[in-house]
């Protein structure tokens, strides 16, 4: 572009190799929209071509050099000017000189280390992009293209369950159990709640997934809590001895892997919040951090051909298949142990198949699963309870008086798998107070 409307100028296009074959991922942009970006994993080579097209064919373009950069950066929204680049790789494509015609430059960033996953949150954004620049005397011609990066993780399937007894003395004692402490993003939370003592009139119980984004450090720490999902697991008042099953499918929610201390700039953590509401709308809750991780689904691709309709086969028959796939492809990721309580989870979702969802036209109508789940889950979860905007929780002040400590600590029962946290059931919900 030229200030005076004359002189040569050019358009830059960045074309990635195997763009047509590569998977895409949806990534939120900072204005809240979603866009589909090519997906790369850590260590993968990013390669392609930079095409420069001259606006006025025939006349030359003078430049000081052409380069392409691969940049990974963290943008803190309160600090717009400063971007923290954790990756910055440069490839020179051309020495300073004149361009006389359309030119295409191949580039390759081989085996780039991409340590973090792309993320767009309330206060922070982590992005990767390629930037091609034609350096000129006055204004450079620049083209930026974002790419998506997913970090894959692997945990053994046998993980400690979370089991804890919490309560308010002489009022409510419950024992709850989540089958794992680390869940992958398409996982199912299976668990149960056992009521040991109930002296309050419970109206219902729900599990919510809270995303807590912490940015900055020291005095400049900002914490943003977001309730990603709300899921009613019990209706009505149980009595002593009742045990209530929990089963929450995570695939339908908009979740990211847990991120801890990313480049010392921010963290994203997830909590399962078990909330009991009594008939006077007091809330009793217990938050429990869980680690979310992204599981590679590559290994499934060859096994489930999405173009064949998935037949309903019995879950326990399906199990060995999965086990097989796990050991053959990616032994570090999934070693299903026979003692794993996963059985239940499997049995409930007979045709659950991650491969289907992402890789083939599912037989369902146009809508994508997460759209559906939003439809279902948002249908009316809130339609008869007060809008619980954290700040205006009405019970908050009432139940806070200091002279009556409402929080009773119960010593951990020794033989239970210990979670390094005080088993405290908080009451009332005080989501307004930031960071615990």
């Amino acid at each position, binding site marked *: 572009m030229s200030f005076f409307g004359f002189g040569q100028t050019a358009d830059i296009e960045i074309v990635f190799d195997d763009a047509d074959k590569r998977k895409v991922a949806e990534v939120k942009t900072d204005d809240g929209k979603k866009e589909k970006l090519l997906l790369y994993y850590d260590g993968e080579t990013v390669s392609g071509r930079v095409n420069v097209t001259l606006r006025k064919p025939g006349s030359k373009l003078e430049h000081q050099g052409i380069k392409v950069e691969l940049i990974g950066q963290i943008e803190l929204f309160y600090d717009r000017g400063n971007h923290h680049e954790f990756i910055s790789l440069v490839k020179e494509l051309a020495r300073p000189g004149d361009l006389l015609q359309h030119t295409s430059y191949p580039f390759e960033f081989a085996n780039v280390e991409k340590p973090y996953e792309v993320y767009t949150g309330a206060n922070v954004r982590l992005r990767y992009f390629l930037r091609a620049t034609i350096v000129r005397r006055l204004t450079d011609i620049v083209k930026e293209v974002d790419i998506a990066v997913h970090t894959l993780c692997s945990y053994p399937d046998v993980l400690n369950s979370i089991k804890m007894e919490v309560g308010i003395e002489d009022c409510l004692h419950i024992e709850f159990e989540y089958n794992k402490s680390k869940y992958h993003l398409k996982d199912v939370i299976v668990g149960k709640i056992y009521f040991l003592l109930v002296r309050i009139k419970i109206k219902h119980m729900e599990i919510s997934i809270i995303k807590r984004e912490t940015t900055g450090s020291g005095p400049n720490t900002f914490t943003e809590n977001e309730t990603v999902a709300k899921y009613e*697991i019990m209706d009505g008042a149980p009595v002593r001895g009742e045990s209530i099953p929990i089963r929450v499918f995570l695939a339908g929610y908009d979740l990211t892997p847990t991120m801890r201390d990313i480049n010392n700039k921010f963290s994203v953590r997830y909590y399962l919040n078990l909330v009991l509401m009594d008939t006077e709308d007091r809330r009793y809750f217990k938050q429990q951090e869980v680690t979310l991780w992204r599981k590679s689904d590559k290994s499934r691709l060859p096994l489930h051909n999405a173009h064949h309709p998935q037949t309903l086969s019995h879950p326990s028959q399906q199990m060995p298949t999965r086990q097989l796939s796990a050991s053959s492809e990616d032994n570090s990721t999934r070693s299903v142990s026979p003692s794993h309580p996963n059985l239940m989870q499997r049995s409930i979702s007979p045709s*659950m198949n991650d491969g289907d969802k992402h890789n083939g036209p599912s037989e369902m109508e146009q809508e994508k699963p997460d*759209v559906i789940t939003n439809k279902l889950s948002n249908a009316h979860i809130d339609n008869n309870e007060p809008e619980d905007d954290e700040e205006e929780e009405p019970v908050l002040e009432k139940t806070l008086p200091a002279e009556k400590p409402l929080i009773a600590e119960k010593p951990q029962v020794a033989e239970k798998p210990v979670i390094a946290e005080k088993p405290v059931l908080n009451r009332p919900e005080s989501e307004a107070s930031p960071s615990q």
Partner: protein
Amino acid sequence: MDRIDHPFLYIWSSAQMTNQASPVEEQEKLLDDALNIVKVQAFQMKRCLDKSKLMDALKHASTMLGELRTSLLSPKSYYELYMAITDELRHLELYLLEEFQKGRKVADLYELVQYAGNIVPRLYLLITVGLVYIKTNTNLRRDLLKDLVEMCRGVQHPLRGLFLRNYLLQCTRNVLPDTSEAQNENEGTVKDAIDFVLMNFAEMNKLWVRMQHQGHSRDKERRERERSELRILVGTNLVRLSQLESVTVDDYRRLVLPGILEQVVSCRDAIAQEYLMECIIQVFPDEFHLANLQPFLKSCAELQPGVNIKNIIIALIERLATYSQRNEGNINLSVVQEDGQEQEVQLFEVFSDQVAAITQSRTDMPPEDMLSLQLALLKLAQRCHPNKLNYVDRVLAHTDKICADIHVASGKTHLEHNTAVFKELMKILKLPADHYKNILTLIKLQKYAPLIRHLNHPGRIMIAVHLINDVLDTDCTISTPEDVEAVLSMLDVLVKDQPDQPTTEPDVEDFMEEQGLLARLIHHFKSDSADLQYLILSAARKTLQGGGARRIQHTFPPILFHAYRLAFLYHELKDQDEMWEKKCQKIFQFCHQTISMLVKAELAELPLRLYLQGALAISEIGFANHETIAYEFLSQAFSLYEDEISDSKAQLAAITLIIATFEQINCFGAENAEPMRTQCALAASKLLKKPDQSRAVALCAHLFWKPVKDGKPWALNDAGRALDCVKKAARVAQQCMDGAVQAQLLAELLGRYALLRERGNAALTTNLIEAVIQKIREELANLDQSEEVEQITKHFHNTLQHLKNRMECPDPEGLGYEGLTLS
């Protein structure tokens, strides 16, 4: 889901709602609102289904189901809403089923519906989808059923939970595995079905019981009504279990019944226990019950104090009794003993033992219920073991003990009239009576008579009357002295005064009626053997003589008539029994004693008549020494007349009877006849009123002149004295002031003249008769016309007509009326 076969409709239609929290109109409005939303959402859902937009359809379905989350509706309204919604859900189900069967499976549908944020809509959808999965792939059946019933735990609200689980039960009713061996273990066997239903049942029962303990105590009544409206939901589980065809007796014993009973006993809720126990009895087949009587009855003993165990056990007893009858008592009942051995036992034995255990362990049981149980046992014994009288006796013995306990508890010696226990005992007593229709069987029951004594006085009378009526209706005879004694001791209350009878005089009519019945009963004391009959009569008299004047006047006459008849019987048997004369003598001695007892009881007219009747019998039988005895009887009668009868009318009647009796008796010689007839004539002439005197004296003529018998005239005929009598009667008649009376007496006398003359007394000449006729005519002419006079005239003319007839065609054997002029 089917409206028609759902038992609810009936129940609701009769249930009336008064919900305090939201009155009727408000309920209607709430329900209307909800139904409107359902209508709209269902329409949208179906439209989306038509366009194959499944996800949108699911969303509408979920919104529609959201209406079931309400807490504002009464059970009745909630039921209507539930019906409307589940009807609509069927569209979804059918659509999915069709799609699946066409091979167009929707991936992950089972998972997808679980994203619904609210649990109630989520579970309804899950069940609907789960059903489609099961129907299209039976391999999933076992696990899906398990999962569904488990996930439903999330709804702990009683009303919503009950309906949700009802939906689960309705949906799965046709897909439960019902084979004992599965080809594919994933399809499940009937054991999985049992587990499934039992689990659902246990949870539903818990929810149902929980309703009782929620809310304000002042709403207790309403809550209990609502609960009873909902009970069918819980009971349906049991129905479903009973519909599993491959459940064997063994499965039932090991799995089904223990599962149910455990829930029933442990829920500790009277309403639930009572209903469910009855449910068990009604829904499962008889064979199952027979094989499991002991565990069932043991559980009965463990139920809550408030439970009306009586009804439960009675229902079971009646059911099995009917079954046993249907199989003509051929039921094999084996019981596992404590040592593990099977032993064949009688149905009754099991029940008897268990009922005894239950009544013992449940001290809170009202005594009338204990009695009802005995009543049921009694029925069982009678229906299933008609030959075992000792069973009946055992029940009666138990009953006796219970009654004794009641007396101890109440401090009274008898059961009060019209109390519940009284009525029950009454039923127990009437049952064998009506069943056997034979009092002889009853007296074989050792405990029957003692049981009657537990009733109070009116009660005993009622039962006694009932028993007697039975005897009279069936016309059975009591034919040994022992039986007679037993029967009478059973009817003690009618036979003699009771220490507890009311001090006020009993109602005369009632009393007469009771004694009348007793008297009729005595006629059934009959034996074919004459000797035995005598013993029977003495036994009866011995017992009955304790009854006092008021009773013996009713009860002795039948004994006496029995005795007279017996004497005649001996007379007939005189060829076979040499001793007959002695026996007859003894009988009449017995009669004499009996009558004198009546005399001692200050009765007069009755013994008088009985003496006369006796005298007649004696004269006819004619055994040795009979004249003396007849004379004795007659003279006793006469002395009764003289000493005891003072009323003039009674005197006339008595003397008439005495005269008539004497006239009938032919055994007297002059020695005995003379004083008797003289006394009679004397007594007749001493009557107070002239007309009485006239009539009695006229009758006395018959004492002196009897008709020809067996071709021979009576040896003691005395024509002159007969004439004197008639003449005297005429004279006395003419002394009467009233012309009409005079005319009547003369008219009667004319008949007497004619009769005596026709009987051959020539002393009564035609002239005399003419004079009388003349006299009557004179008197009649003086009388004014009146109805009375007309009758007399008619009487007179009839007599004249008779004379005229005789004159025209005279009796060849009697005296004629030659020379009589009637003009």
